[in-house]
């Protein structure tokens, strides 16, 4: 009995769920049955993933006795590195399974959607449990296509087609690069099983290893959302249904991260510290750019999508620094940063999925995703607000929740960059830490806005005022909120499991350098710093209890009653006079105008009336994200120019086609004669 059996069970349950969804999803009982099976599968996957974190790598399994898939052998293996990702997949699957019955309306579209979703779940599981190259690639492509079907749930809207197309196009380019990387490694090591490739990697010359790594970084970076290949995220997330967006951000993006980790730590040991530097730089850049663009977004889902880019950047920065430390022969620090990165993977999966599910609840209740049309939802959706607040605290990395724990670990690892002994790399690692510090501050700012504008204050529109909580899904996001708290308070348990994972992957036992006692955490060195997440959580709760006790035990006060909010004495205070999402983030936007380069247009009723007394003043600011403007648009224009140049070949003139046929036959004749 090993973890792979549990994963088989999960896969079987999800296959059954997919079939149930496809056949019976048009009616409510079928929807419930499908989701029930999905939850079972999720539980099995979570258990299997958690077990394989501590169990180590299972052996290579070829099920069905030499079964081939797409011409290559079907090889499965439950690895420790993939364990975190599988556990996250299972947890997210359970949460979405509890969320979906109340979110989706039963119908034919839902049936197809459920089938595609479970196909995606199966494909993700197969990617994570792949023991061989072909299995990995086939599962990867299946996952991409299934996710495309997820995104086009509502095919009649224009934005839906555009978002899904961006996703598919960038997925395919990434896939091409990943195939190239795998093919290079496989042909040089003469093996297709991942274990064999890893074992023989040292035989491959440094140049090929480097090329394969860079191709893999780029290819997986497309899926993970590293800058400049992140463009599909803000396009695809808003148009997918909420649980689809949650699945994309919570799991699918993590698969890109898993691919980078796979190549960095297992398959592709490139010599030198420069690959780690490239990875760390890409991560730091993604983190900064992700959160800066998040500040501009009014659509809640686009905002969360940019935040996913930021968090992917943080995880990849941790992995990059781990590679640098490994190159400088500091295996303890390298393993520590690997643990920190994997912890952040688990944390981000939890709270990002939670926030996307809550965005779906808000959209369901009010009919809009625009922050500037919401407000006051904390009174109308109280329990959802509490759950969303837990997720917000987590993603803003505020103690005592899980985001703070993983970011503390990453920062403590980066701060020890001086131990490399190299001035240049020490400074660069600290620069990366400074960038992460900037993004951390901006993230708090962004999420105060992201939670405060829709939930607090007064409702800005009638739809926001009409929101009701009855019938909204609570169990799914609630489970993820509980997971966030558990990952924070139970950090020692999680760290113990992750250190076993690190031992399997890197061979380094951190043991007392990480967890000297039961509750304290050390950053791989005993003389640097220390931290106890459990004590911190307990202390913060107790600290809040003291003022509460003083208040309750105090002397009886005079009678008091509710009075109107102090609004500055205005004759009539309108909800539109509150902070809007764009004004709240205005200081950051103005500071970073050089990055945004907005195209601002101001039109007035008449030119000699700047104050707008004779008519309205129209202000419009358009931002084209920097990579779209300078990278994608030129490339797209070049491709279109090329296509335009080739078009005359296909003129539709039959005589020209006959000439082609004749020319080809003549050419073939001549070549044959030669």
């Amino acid at each position, binding site marked *: 009995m090993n973890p792979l059996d549990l994963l088989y069970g999960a896969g079987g349950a999800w296959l059954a769920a997919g079939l149930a969804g496809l056949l019976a999803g048009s009616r409510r009982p079928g929807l419930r049955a499908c989701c029930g099976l999905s939850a079972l599968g999720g539980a099995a996957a979570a258990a299997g993933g958690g077990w394989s974190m501590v169990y180590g790598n299972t052996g290579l399994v070829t099920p069905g006795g030499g079964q081939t898939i797409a011409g290559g052998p079907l090889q499965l293996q439950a690895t420790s590195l993939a364990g975190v990702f599988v556990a996250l997949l299972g947890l997210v699957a359970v949460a979405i399974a509890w969320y979906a019955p109340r979110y989706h309306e039963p119908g034919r579209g839902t049936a197809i959607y459920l089938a595609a979703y479970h196909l995606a779940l199966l494909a993700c599981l197969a990617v994570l449990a792949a023991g061989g190259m072909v299995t990995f690639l086939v599962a990867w492509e299946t996952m991409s296509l299934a996710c495309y079907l997820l995104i086009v749930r509502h095919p009649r809207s224009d934005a839906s087609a555009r978002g899904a197309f961006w996703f598919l196009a960038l997925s395919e380019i990434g896939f091409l690069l990943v195939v190239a990387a795998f093919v290079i490694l496989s042909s040089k090591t003469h093996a297709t099983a991942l274990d064999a490739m890893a074992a023989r990697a040292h035989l491959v010359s440094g140049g090929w290893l480097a090329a394969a790594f860079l191709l893999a970084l780029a290819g997986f970076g497309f899926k993970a959302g590293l800058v400049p290949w992140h463009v599909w995220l803000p396009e695809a997330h808003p148009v997918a249904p909420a649980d689809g967006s949650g699945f994309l951000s919570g799991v699918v993006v993590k698969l890109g991260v898993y691919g980078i980790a796979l190549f960095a730590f297992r398959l592709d040991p490139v010599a030198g510290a420069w690959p780690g530097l490239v990875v760390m730089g890409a991560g730091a850049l993604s983190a900064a750019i992700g959160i800066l663009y998040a500040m501009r977004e009014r659509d809640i889902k686009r905002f969360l999508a940019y935040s996913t880019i930021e968090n992917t950047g943080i995880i990849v920065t941790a992995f990059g620094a781990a590679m640098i430390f490994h190159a400088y022969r500091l295996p303890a620090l390298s393993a520590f940063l690997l643990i920190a990165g994997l912890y952040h993977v688990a944390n981000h999966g939890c709270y990002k999925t939670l926030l996307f599910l809550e965005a779906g609840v808000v959209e369901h209740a009010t009919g809009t995703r625009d922050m500037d049309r919401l407000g006051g939802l904390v009174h109308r959706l109280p329990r959802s607000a509490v759950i969303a607040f837990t997720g917000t605290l987590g993603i803003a990395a505020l103690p005592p929740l899980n985001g703070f724990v993983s970011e503390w670990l990453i920062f403590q690892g980066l701060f020890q960059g001086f131990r490399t002994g190299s001035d240049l790399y020490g400074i660069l690692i600290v620069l990366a830490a400074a960038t992460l510090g900037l993004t951390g501050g901006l993230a708090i700012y962004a999420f105060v806005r992201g939670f405060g504008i829709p939930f607090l204050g007064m409702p800005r529109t009638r739809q926001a005022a009409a929101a009701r909580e009855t019938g909204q899904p609570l169990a799914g996001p609630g489970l993820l909120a509980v997971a966030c708290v558990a990952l924070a308070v139970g950090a020692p348990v999680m760290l113990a499991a992750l250190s076993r994972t690190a031992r399997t992957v890197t061979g380094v036992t951190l043991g007392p350098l990480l967890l000297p006692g039961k509750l304290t955490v050390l950053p791989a060195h005993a003389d640097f710093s220390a931290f106890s997440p459990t004590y911190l959580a307990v202390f913060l709760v107790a600290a809040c209890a003291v003022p509460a006790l003083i208040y309750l035990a105090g002397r009886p006060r*005079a009678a008091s009653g509710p009075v*109107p909010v102090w609004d500055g*004495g205005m004759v009539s205070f309108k909800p539109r006079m509150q902070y809007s999402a764009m004004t709240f983030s205005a200081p950051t936007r103005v500071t970073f105008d050089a990055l945004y380069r907005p195209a601002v247009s101001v039109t007035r009723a008449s030119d000699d009336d700047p104050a707008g007394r004779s008519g309205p003043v129209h202000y419009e600011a358009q931002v084209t994200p920097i990579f779209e403007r300078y990278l994608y648009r030129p490339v797209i224009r070049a491709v279109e120019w090329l296509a335009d140049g080739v078009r005359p070949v296909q003129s539709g003139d039959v005589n020209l086609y006959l000439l082609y046929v004749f020319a080809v036959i003549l050419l073939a004749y001549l070549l044959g004669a030669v």
Partner: protein
Amino acid sequence: MKPGQPGQDEPTAAEELRKQIAAQFGRSLHIRTLDTGSCAVCEQEIRLLTAPHYDLHRLGFFFTPAPRHADLLLVTGPMVRAFEVAARKTYEAMPGPKVVVATGACALGGVYQSDPFVHGEVDAVLPVDVWIPGCPPSPLALLQGLGVAVGRLAEKTPGLEFIDGGGA
């Protein structure tokens, strides 16, 4: 808080309230200023109170912009009718116990009479407890008025006659 007219039997409730105010505000008082349409010279004198020469902080008085944190409302100006709603809202936003002090000849009804645009005196809209005359009242007069309002100083006006005894 509205004490009774001098010369009548003062009800004990007002005395009690005054004692409470002296006990609570005697050491520390937060003042919120309100300009109901003055020429702003009274405001300049009020602002001088924070300057080093007069320094009202040494007496435990502080200015606060938030009526929710204020104990005393210092009102200037003849209570323009357009400001009535804001003045009432400011008064109602202050938690009890609270004191209203009207200062300046405008606020006491000495400059404008009631007409379609102005009430003429602050007492028409808000229940005033202490009146401080002057045009403008010097910072020393304001300090004495604030001291009277919290019960730290005795008021001198009942004893004043404005009659010059000497000379024929």
